[in-house]
Each structure stands twice: as structure tokens, then as C-alpha cells.
């Protein structure tokens, strides 16, 4: 022990990508619930509205019977879209049980115009609150799921 590297425990994830399209078009793909559903792989019941629940079902191959649940936190046109979702860790029994999950993580999409188009940053925060067994579930679930997802992205990009 005594290694600060080991002790480093981030509470959030941040990812940035450059998109060769104007901010308006990226914003539209985020905020239009049908367009959002197309790339996120989810069928949403309603348009997004601040303070409102968002519900639906995943359309991701192999996960079609997984519910989508979120609460929209912010819609700031061309700038920021944020929602919270329950940290279920992909635990389907927990999702279906009707038991409220008390830990939610916050997802924020932030847009900036660049010379070439748009810089999009997504952050997800609040992971330090999630109990350990649920985290382990996520890890097991994702071992197979991730390989599947990579294939999926490639298929999508090549068509």
C-alpha cells in the first residue's frame, strides 16, 4: 500500500469527441427523443421535458426487455442536456422489483462549437455512492456485453 495511484477513486467519468457537424445538428440528435433513441438504442415513450420522467425500453440487441428510466434535469439549448438515471448496475431483478433505487448518477452532455464542427463532452457522476455488489454485477454483465457492442458500432458505421 501507500501508493496514491491505488487510492485514487474517481467519482465521475468524462468523455469528449469531435463531431464534424454544426452544434444545431448535434443538439437536435440529443434532444429529439426519437433521434436520441436511434443512436442510444432505446425506444422512448415521450419527448424530453425538464423535471419530467423519461421512460421506455432498450432496443440494444440482447437487451430489448430492459427498461429505460431517467429524469431530465436540464435542457439548455445548444449547450447542455442533463438527466439522472438509477444506478441499477444492469440488475434486471432490481429494475423489475419496483423497489426504488436510491443512488442515481447524473449524465450531462455539453456542446461547444469548434472550427470543424462540435466538441461534445459527456460526464457521468455520482458513482461513489453505489454499493459494491451492484458494481460487481455491472462488471460481470459487461464482460460479454462490451464485445457485442463493439461489433454493433462497427456494423452501424459500415452501413
Amino acid at each position, binding site marked *: 500500500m501507500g*501508493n496514491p495511484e491505488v487510492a485514487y477513486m474517481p467519482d465521475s467519468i468524462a468523455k469528449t469527441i469531435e463531431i464534424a457537424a454544426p452544434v444545431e445538428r448535434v443538439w437536435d440528435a440529443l434532444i429529439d427523443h426519437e433521434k436520441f433513441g436511434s443512436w442510444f438504442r432505446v425506444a422512448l415513450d415521450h419527448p424530453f421535458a425538464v423535471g419530467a420522467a423519461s421512460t421506455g425500453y432498450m432496443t440494444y440487441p440482447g437487451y430489448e426487455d430492459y427498461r429505460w428510466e431517467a429524469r431530465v434535469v436540464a435542457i439548455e439549448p445548444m449547450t447542455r442536456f442533463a438527466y439522472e438515471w438509477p444506478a441499477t448496475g444492469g440488475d434486471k431483478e432490481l429494475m423489475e422489483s419496483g423497489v426504488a433505487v436510491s443512488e442515481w448518477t447524473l449524465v450531462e452532455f455539453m456542446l461547444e462549437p469548434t472550427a470543424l464542427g462540435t466538441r461534445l463532452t459527456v460526464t457521468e457522476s455520482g458513482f461513489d455512492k453505489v*454499493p459494491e455488489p451492484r458494481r460487481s454485477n455491472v462488471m460481470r454483465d459487461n464482460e460479454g456485453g462490451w464485445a457485442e457492442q463493439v461489433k454493433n458500432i462497427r456494423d452501424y458505421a459500415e452501413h
Partner: protein
Amino acid sequence: MIGRLADGGERSIGQLGHGLPISRQAVAKHLDVLLGAGLVTRTRAGREALFSLRPEGVAEARDWLAKVGSQWDGTLGRLKDFVESQP
């Protein structure tokens, strides 16, 4: 809190909260969350509870965040493809 346990030693609630502008109760509550998350362990020394870091818990948490991060890479890749392929 995690930083204060990073040397692998054991600390009491008083030692962990020393110099922080938060109450003993707040420190205890934060430690409860870390215990629940498997990031620290608790032992007893007489009447006092001592806390230390659970390195395997921290490693698991980091692996888990890496996995979640990979999923976001995939999701954002699909968003990029979607937007850039629109007429």
C-alpha cells in the same frame, strides 16, 4: 477521506475529520457510504472504530468505471456516426 487512508493505515473518525470543516456525524455518514461501497473496512480497537482502505474495493471500483467509460465510448461513437451520416 479516501486520500487520508491512502497510506494503508487505520484511522478513527476523529483523525479522519481532523481539520475538515464538517461535523463528526458528517464524517461518520460519509464513512458509512464508503463502507457500503466496499471501499473501506472497519475494525474495533476497544471502544473506538478504526477505518482503513480496502484496496481490492478501490481496484474493483476503478475497473467498473473503466467499463462504464468504454460503454460511453461506444454510445458517443454511435451519436457521431448518426449525426455525420445525416444529409
